[in-house]
């Protein structure tokens, strides 16, 4: 079972992502900001990280950069949850090392489709 780390400061978004992915049989760990995500990433292995961009303490872009510095996460897919208005954010995200993005708003089906695509 693939392990996914879901990072979002918004509890409702986190719940939705987590519920959807768990329902599809994934093993999901939640984190509420970049700092918590990084701590969890250091103590466990994940097959995919899905992270919000705007978060307190450590934002998604910094998180991507920090994760890529860890050996285990060098090639692991990392998806950013971003809003359609922020084309620049997408570019910044790519520059930071993100694999791709999921555009907000999204529904559970779109999320699953993207995750399945990435995890094959």
């Amino acid at each position, binding site marked *: 079972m693939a392990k996914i780390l879901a990072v979002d*400061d*918004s*509890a*409702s*978004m986190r*719940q*939705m992502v987590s*519920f*959807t992915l768990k*329902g*599809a049989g994934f093993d999901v760990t939640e984190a509420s900001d970049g700092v918590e995500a990084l701590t969890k990433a250091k103590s466990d292995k994940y097959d995919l990280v899905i992270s*919000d961009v*705007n*978060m*307190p303490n450590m934002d998604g872009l910094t998180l991507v950069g920090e994760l*890529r510095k860890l050996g285990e996460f*060098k*090639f*692991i*897919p*990392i998806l950013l*949850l971003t*809003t*359609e*208005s922020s*084309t620049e954010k997408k*570019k910044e995200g*790519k520059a930071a*090392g*993100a*694999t*791709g*993005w999921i*555009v*907000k*708003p*999204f*529904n*559970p*089906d*779109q999320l*699953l489709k993207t995750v399945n*695509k*990435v995890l*094959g």
Partner: protein
Amino acid sequence: MAIDISQFLDTFYEESFEGLDIMESELLNLDVGEADVEVINTIFRAAHSIKGGSGTFGLNAVADYTHVMETLLDEMRAGEREVTQNAVDILLRSVDVLRSMLISLKDNEDLDQETISKTHEELTHLLNGGATGTPAEAITASDATAQQSEQADKQQGWTIKFKPHPDMLQTGNDPVRIIRELESLGDVSVEADTSALPEFEMLDPELSYLSWTIHLSGNVAEDDITECFEWVDDECDLSIVATQSIENKTSGEGNVATDKPMIEAAAAPEERRTSDRRQGERRSAPKAAKKPAESTSIRVNINKVDDLINMVGELVITQSMLSQIGGVEDFDTSALERLNDGLSQLEQHTRELQESVMRIRMMPISFAFQRFPRLVHDLSSQLGKQIELKLTGESTELDKTVMEKIGDPLVHLVRNSLDHGIEMPDVRVQNGKDETGIIELNAFHQGGNIVIEIRDDGAGLNKERILNKAIASGIVKEEDNLSDEQVNDLIFAPGFSTAEVVSDVSGRGVGMDVVRRNIRALGGTVEVQSEQGVGSVFTIRLPLTLAILDGQLIRVGEETYIVPLISIIESLQVNPEMMSSVTGAADVYKLRDDYIPIVRLYDVFGIKADSTNISEGLLVVVENEGKKIALFVDELLGQQQVVIKSLETNLKQIDGLSGATILGNGTVALILDINGVMTLYQEVTRASILQDKTEKIIAA
């Protein structure tokens, strides 16, 4: 898989309200002119979260509204836009509008379109006054893209040349994944070009050396192909060429293959998604109407839950220990000792468990305090006063129900301090004070109570004026010799008002008695200390919880009642000389300078007492709203904390009783409502005086 996302709505509302509170308090923190980027960032983040969530959960009105706010805040954050007072005010109003929108949506009520569009207009006006790119233009632009993509040609086959840059793998992108995705669009044949592959010892496994030529056949739109490469468009060399073009019905042009994927085209499917979602929202609207509007949930710190689980664990251990002793066939003295140990452990664990459970209902008082920065900001500018608000002890915890009910009295007291306490800046300067007045809210625990202080450095209470007013309204008599405290206390008297001009800030002065009544209803007290010219302090004392009460157990005949300890002044044995009878029906007891009516509980509740002779029982003197009565009881039992059970939920509301509890021996004891007992007593006395008179008339 269909997932009902409405199950996350409650969480969304909860966090959105929190987000709005954050936005509000940070907006109030924002220094006009030289705004702190971190503060703007925090506000932006809150708006951004609400926008993202509302979009996802299909609340498009909220999403559209926050979009404009977010754009504005983004420009402020980037330093492209000045933070003006006007902008802050509009943003604050927008926070209010958003809050009411969310409340309406939550309660399935209609949105107040007029207010929404008014502030929305203000926002867009502000946004367009200087910045480039209005939302309206943006929509037109994406509409155009959508139309364009509608007309996009479909091709019979494509040749795709895909050459990842060497470091493409390092963003976690996998070429095989992309090829697999293309496979889902149509038939694919792939040729790999391995010519760039170095010698094995030169090979860096972290780099990409391969490139591919992919032939895709089938009726596939170019957009669908570019979407597969969306994440890697700047990490590869890509060409997408139509192998066989067919005439398109709507357009003869545009069949030319493009070398680069188009970002614009990628936006089109999103646009479609958005409109799908909107339809979805409309469909699901009637279903949502079934949901109950009120949220009864509470957010609990995980530590509290863990404590609870620990306590239950301990309890289970104790229980198994006790049942082991119970299972012993020959019960001897050694078992007795262990039984005693077990029982005292059980007692301790039960008490701790009770405390842990109580703590779950406790919330920091910051929930009640957080509305004040805004209130003070708005009112002080309305009144032309300069006021600094200081909050301390915000983490002090209080029962959720008490918190909800103390909100309004607190608001009233703060408004009162703002309006009547703090002077106008020029008056303050004349009196040698700083022109900025200070209002301080402080909360702390003291004994089993929580104390909330509202302190201002304003004019203080004018004792002379209060006294004159009280005499004029007949609350006190001129010859009454009142202490300073008693004079101050008069402001809580019903119908008392000293404000010369009725203001729309703190109203007609009908509030203070209501404030006291509401606080008393919570089992609390409020008092004021004041020094003229220096300021006033209002002190509220509240029980930590409404679910538990410190009670004095009393016995009347076979019944046990509980008197709230907070109402008891003293208990005494009767000195018959101090008793006197008024009109034959009511007895009073002279206690120092007071004559206190004696209330025979057996009479009020119609039960049988051990004795009706006053000198054989005890008097418990209790006070409520400044009035005292002496309850005549047979015996005082112990004092203990009791858990209050509502009578209304199980039976019905009964005059003179506020609830019931279950005692250690399993019997039910009723809790006296002192105010209710006083009313009952008056009725009983009036009836008996009436009967007395009737009998006398008949006898005559």
